[in-house]
């Protein structure tokens, strides 16, 4: 049985897109764009909350860290839906940053030692069925599936 060609996973053919300024005011519009499509695609309740959580982690990261305050930019969110499969891609042209790389937080630490950061990345890796990062044409390209 031949393997599915993996290179198609993060190619944008067939994705539908919304581009917004990378600020918190745009976050709700981007979330509604993606979640509306996911509900229309009849994802399960469990798939919906996993999608929503991973999408929030990825987009808020871009909004907070991709661009310097004096040079704001945009963030684009795209999706493709097929039966029992929903893939999302988030793109920005900010500084190179891989949001899924890095060590897991130490879940055994106590309240005083535990860091507030790093959990979003950890949950993204836990909840997405697949997640890939690429730097392409001056853009950060993060693709994930639920």
């Amino acid at each position, binding site marked *: 049985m031949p393997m599915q060609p993996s290179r198609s996973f993060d190619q944008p053919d067939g994705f539908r897109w919304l581009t917004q300024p990378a600020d*918190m005011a745009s*976050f*709700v519009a981007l979330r509604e764009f993606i979640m509306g499509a996911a509900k229309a695609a009849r994802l399960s309740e*469990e798939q919906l*909350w996993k999608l*929503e*959580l991973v999408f*929030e*982690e990825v987009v*808020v990261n871009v909004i907070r860290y991709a661009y310097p305050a004096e040079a704001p930019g945009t963030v684009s969110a795209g999706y493709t839906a097929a039966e029992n499969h929903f893939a999302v891609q988030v793109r920005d042209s900010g500084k190179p940053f891989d949001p899924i790389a890095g060590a897991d*937080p130490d*879940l*055994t630490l*106590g*309240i*005083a030692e*535990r860091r*507030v*950061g790093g*959990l*979003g990345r*950890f*949950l993204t890796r*836990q*909840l997405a069925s697949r997640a890939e990062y690429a730097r392409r044409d001056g853009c950060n390209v993060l693709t994930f599936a639920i």
Partner: protein
Amino acid sequence: MDISSIKQERGVLVTLVGRMDAVTAVQFEQACDPWIKGGEKNIVADFTRLEYISSMGLGSLLSVAKKLQPNGGRLAICGLTGMVKEVFRLSGFDKLIPGFENADAAFQKL
């Protein structure tokens, strides 16, 4: 997210209704900070009607727990259900912040 807080005999009960996400998570710290500054040690957050939490929400909980600790206080949660319960388990927060069935049980153990 709707949030309310009320002083009880053994601490402060904070009730959250709705979604604790990147937009709303800061409300939890804003609700707790005046109580902490006023010398309250123990806070119980009632999550019975909380539908959604992201890592930003978890961060807000951890910040409050860190502020309470130096004064010998604690943050506890009650009413964990659904995805909130699952995110707590995945992130190890079920080991970090004690969880109880209801507010009475939480206040008795704090």
